[in-house]
């Protein structure tokens, strides 16, 4: 028994040493400043903040959440309080979102939720929660998509085997109309919506131009590199290095105007035929429980505005991920998200 104890203690010592060395800020004892001054008008955080992220650690949404939390802490925007990012992935994130939606007032002022277009779509489709069950605090960044292809890959699809040109989307549309099956790949969420809109615009069916869903954009790109799909839908950042290395070709800009830089060669849909442009903005935002007080909403919206204006946000997040800087405060963001949701529901026949 003694030996077991000695062993366990030794383990613990190692662990705690490492913990001390590894973490800069252990949750410091909450300072009581905030409690003493019972504020009347302005909201000032006086206890720890929980930031719920419904995606797993290490992914895009997680990095987004942690980056903002870091900047808030480093620039001392939250009265020295600690922000704990909690990854709650139960039920594909629906459980976490539902928890935030139904949170009681009080705690609600100290709860933030990462809320992206990719979160909204499955939520609206699979549950009864709507964006009106939340307070939308801000939109922080927007992204758009392109269609890429890898003509050098081994021909495994019908279209490639039939000698179709994977650099020419107009030719692919023709081929699909004439009965050659064309496959597009992409990840779930945003990319499927974009595919649906594209299909509707060019007037094809799923039997003519099919879609394979991948767990992530990187999986979809791999499939394109391996010749398993003809085209792949991706945001610029995920595909950028493959374009640089010459493995992927930008074929079509899913936007109202062409991109710049090495993606400038890709035409928009209206350039290659008699179609309207297809553009589905992919946005990243922050939401809060519906029961959050108006003072707190104003405070958080303002703090997020400060974050989006900071240098760190631009150099360490936006530029690194090639995102478009587009801060919307709570009023503008709510309006934007509501319109987006209505549009999505109409397109999918939901009510």
């Amino acid at each position, binding site marked *: 028994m003694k030996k*077991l*104890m000695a062993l*366990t203690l030794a383990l*613990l010592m190692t*662990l*705690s040493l490492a*913990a001390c060395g590894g*973490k800069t800020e*252990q*949750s410091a004892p909450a300072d009581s400043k905030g409690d003493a001054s019972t504020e009347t008008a302005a909201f000032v955080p006086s206890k720890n903040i929980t930031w719920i992220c419904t995606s797993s650690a290490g992914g895009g949404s997680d990095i987004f959440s942690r980056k903002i939390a870091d900047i808030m802490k480093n620039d001392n925007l939250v009265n020295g309080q600690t922000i704990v990012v909690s990854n709650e992935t139960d039920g594909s994130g629906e459980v976490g979102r539902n928890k935030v939606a139904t949170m009681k007032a009080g705690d609600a002022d100290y709860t933030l939720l990462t809320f992206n277009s990719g979160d909204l779509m499955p939520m609206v489709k699979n549950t009864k929660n709507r964006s009106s069950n939340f307070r939308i605090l801000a939109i922080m960044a927007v992204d758009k998509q392109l269609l890429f292809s890898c003509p050098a890959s081994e021909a495994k699809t019908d279209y490639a085997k039939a000698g179709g040109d994977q650099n020419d989307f107009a030719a692919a549309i023709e081929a699909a109309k004439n009965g050659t099956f064309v496959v597009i790949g992409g990840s779930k969420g945003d990319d499927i919506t974009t595919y649906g809109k594209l299909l509707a615009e060019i007037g094809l069916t799923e039997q003519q131009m099919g879609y394979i869903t991948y767990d992530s954009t990187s999986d979809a790109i791999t499939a394109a590199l391996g010749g398993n799909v003809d085209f792949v839908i991706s945001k610029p950042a995920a595909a950028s290095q493959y374009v640089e290395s010459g493995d992927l070709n930008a074929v079509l800009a899913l936007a109202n105007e062409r991109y710049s830089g090495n993606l400038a060669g890709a035409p928009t849909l209206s350039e290659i035929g008699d179609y309207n442009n297809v553009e589905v903005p992919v946005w990243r935002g922050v939401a809060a429980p519906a029961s959050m007080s108006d003072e707190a909403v104003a405070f958080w919206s303002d703090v997020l505005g400060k974050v989006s204006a900071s240098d760190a946000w631009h150099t360490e997040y936006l530029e690194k991920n090639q995102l478009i800087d587009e801060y919307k405060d709570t009023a503008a963001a709510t309006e934007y998200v509501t319109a987006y949701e209505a549009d999505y529901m109409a397109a999918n026949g939901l009510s």
Partner: protein
Amino acid sequence: MENKKKGFNLRTVIPLATIIVSLVFIVVGLKNYGFWNAQPTPGFFPIIIAVVLLASSIACFVQIARDKNSDEVKYNRNELMVMLGAAGIILCTFLIGLVPSCLIYIFLWLKFVERAPWKVIIIIEIIMAAIILGVFTAWLQIRFPMGLLGDLIF
């Protein structure tokens, strides 16, 4: 089936349960998710599997029912204790939080089930508290539920 006298006994519980499971998956699958629509639909793979499960479960049921030699499966009262203990922790978690529930359970178990000496109980309690609080809470930053009581205090 063959064995009318003892056709239904404890040993056939598992195949009976899997027969029910497979039927549920087949019915729900066919009704909601479809089998084939120009290409496989979400129901395709699970339904095939459920059909195989149904067939193998029936075979398994027959096999067990026919086999009169093997002993009845014996369930031990102590085994139920372990399950009840864990269920107790889960229920208590909603009241007083996860960490206290675990520590109280360890104490109760060692004291009243194992009748361990105080020294052992204290050592184990200290080690477990150190692991849960030190490793999980402090280092890995996992926030354990506080339960109703904890929510009232904080």
